[in-house]
């Protein structure tokens, strides 16, 4: 502090800013809106093109091989999908989580961190850098109790993060496509066990949380670890069973095969015209239309599996803090980032199985011929860029829905979590298996779509009408819509 600064000079200085309301004109705001979305889609397009391009580059190192799954292509895929796409997306999600939450709650959200020289909050993005630096440089504190089993204590975050990180390997982001002379696809592992790999690795994640809870030598952490293991194991059953309907429909557990079957075939795309795989000639052959309830059940079970709110009893910040209570610095960061990576993976699986994977509905063959006209013979390759973009947008949408659920629903009590898992989701998914199997036997996938449509209509009807109170004391929309136990129509 400058000692010579007199009070009068302080009054004159900028320490006391004059209150000038910053007013952005509406025209300006409209420009930002259009420009912002244009930039967003341009970014997605660039990202998709870059991802395909880099994988093509790596695939080029395999001189002779001209089918998917070469070593170099795999290296390129690991690099671009897992290290860049998943990690970048998970990192951005740490921020998006806070910023989206703010928007859902009518707040501004984090906007104080600044990049040097730029006097703009940049939508809070500098906070990511601040967070990472904080995680890296914080003291890695190990309590006395935990020091006694240091190995297990250190293994915890690794076992939580490692499997989550590997999960994305089986998720296909693009079709197999001739991308400028090489046949490539954005998928690391082309294996027959597909989704089983996800189930197997996701179970290993339980070791991470259980070990963390136990080796922390803290009763609350142990409680969190126990809750986490019980919850993850319970929901794994449902997680698998909800997908059985999809397995029946596609006859495969490979995610790339499932994605492929949900839209126009490669041949149809090359010929142009209309998409022959549409159900009844108008409905995209997406999993969600065959298995609408399974899609909801799966998303619910998956959210419980990755311990996201409203199923975050293992973490329960307001009560037991959770299995990572004793961790600090980067190890705690690993737990947190593992959750976001898992979010991305779950969104990817839901997209690949239920939302048509990379397929764009209806327009693929037509778009391909248009693009063919633009750049002769490369229509399919250009289409692939749009398909990857479509996949990313779908993933973002699913993630957004998960965040919606987070802010709309109060946290379940632990027994409610178990009740929902074992007594509601499990029987429901079993029933779904039987109905799906019967429908498939009766008339293949079109029959399943028929059943699915009936389910959707019934569901919409239920949401809109069934069980409604008489109009006189209908609950007001802002009241207790999110709370199932509030006394209805109390105001």
């Amino acid at each position, binding site marked *: 502090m400058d000692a010579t600064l007199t009070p*009068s000079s302080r009054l004159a200085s900028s320490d006391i800013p004059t209150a000038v309301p910053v007013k952005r004109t509406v025209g300006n705001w409209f420009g930002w809106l259009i420009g912002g979305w244009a930039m967003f889609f341009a970014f997605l397009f660039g990202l998709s093109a870059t991802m395909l391009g880099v994988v093509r580059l790596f695939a080029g190192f395999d001189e002779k091989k001209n089918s998917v799954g070469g070593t170099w292509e795999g290296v390129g895929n690991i690099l671009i999908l897992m290290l860049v796409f998943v990690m970048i997306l998970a990192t951005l999600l740490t921020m998006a989580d806070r910023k989206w939450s703010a928007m859902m709650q009518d707040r501004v959200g984090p906007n104080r961190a600044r990049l040097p020289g730029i006097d703009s909050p940049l939508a809070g993005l500098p906070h990511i850098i601040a967070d990472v630096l904080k995680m890296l440089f914080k003291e890695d504190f190990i309590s006395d109790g935990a020091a006694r089993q240091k190995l297990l204590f250190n293994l915890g975050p690794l076992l939580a993060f490692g499997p989550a990180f590997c999960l994305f390997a089986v998720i296909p982001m693009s079709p197999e496509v001739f991308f400028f002379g090489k046949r490539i696809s954005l998928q690391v592992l082309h294996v027959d066990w597909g989704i089983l790999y996800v189930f197997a690795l996701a179970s290993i994640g339980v070791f991470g949380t259980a070990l963390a809870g136990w080796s922390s030598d803290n009763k609350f952490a142990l409680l969190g670890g126990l809750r986490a293991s019980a919850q993850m194991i319970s929901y794994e059953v449902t997680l698998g069973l909800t997908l059985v309907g999809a397995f029946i429909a596609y006859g495969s557990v490979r995610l790339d095969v499932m994605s492929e079957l949900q839209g126009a075939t490669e041949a149809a795309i090359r010929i142009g015209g209309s998409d022959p795989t549409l159900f009844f000639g108008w409905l995209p052959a997406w999993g969600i239309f065959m298995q609408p309830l399974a899609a909801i059940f799966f998303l619910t079970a998956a959210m419980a599996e990755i311990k996201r709110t409203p199923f975050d009893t293992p973490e329960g910040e307001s009560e037991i803090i959770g299995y990572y209570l004793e961790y600090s610095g980067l190890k705690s960061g690993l737990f947190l980032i593992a959750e976001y990576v898992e979010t991305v993976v779950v969104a990817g699986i839901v997209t690949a199985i239920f939302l048509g994977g990379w397929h764009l509905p209806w327009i693929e063959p037509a778009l391909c011929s248009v693009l063919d006209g633009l750049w002769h013979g490369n229509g399919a390759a250009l289409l692939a860029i749009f398909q990857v973009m479509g996949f990313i947008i779908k993933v973002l949408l699913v993630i957004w829905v998960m965040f919606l659920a987070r802010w709309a629903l109060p946290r379940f009590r632990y027994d409610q979590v178990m009740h929902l898992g074992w007594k509601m989701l499990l029987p429901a998914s079993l029933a779904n298996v039987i109905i799906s199997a019967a429908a498939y036997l009766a008339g293949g996938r079109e029959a399943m779509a028929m059943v699915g449509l009936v389910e959707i209509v019934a569901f919409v009807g239920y949401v809109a009408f*069934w069980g409604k109170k008489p109009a006189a004391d209908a609950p007001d929309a802002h009241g207790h819509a999110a709370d199932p136990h509030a006394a209805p129509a109390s105001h």
Partner: protein
Amino acid sequence: MDHGHAESPRAAQDEQELTLGEKLFLRETIKGMAIVARHFWKNLFGFRDNTTEVLDRKGTGVNLVTTINYPEEQKPYPPGYRGMHRLVPRVDGRPRCVACYMCATACPAQCIYIEAGEYDDQAIEKYPVRFEIDELRCIVCGFCVEACPKDAIRMDTGTHAPAVLSRPLAVFDKEALLGGAPVELSSDSMTYRAPLKTVAPMGSNEGGKKMGGH
């Protein structure tokens, strides 16, 4: 739930009032998510109204964020707000204060320090040579403003005492306090004394003579 005991009336009531549709939970979930989604899209696409006076943002096209980003956006204080003191100047820039010690006497926190001086040849007898307010001790009661017979001290600056990094900086002196719109009342001239050229200066200093502080 323990069915051995009598259930609380509240719980029984809840059970009764839940319809099957509500027990299925899904609809309530969807309704809740729809509300949250509506807020999200409104805030995403909405035009942020920076007018700081607006508290309840409704209306189309305007987002629902009521937060005021404080240092950049400031809400004007209401008209009666007791803010930073100021010593009201006369039109010629001298303070209206006549160093009567009324405010210092009235001040319950005893944070006003005045040293009076005397004009040699002016229609006004006294003026403050030093006038200091310790804003850290001030309890912002406004008694000083009430006490002043000359309307010479006001708290109408619309800003609060600024944060300081060391205590001495919170003591605002006459130069710092003197400012704002000058005030001249029609009754002022009545209180002027006639210029008394005959009275000899009581000291040899130019501006006036210091009298003791309190």
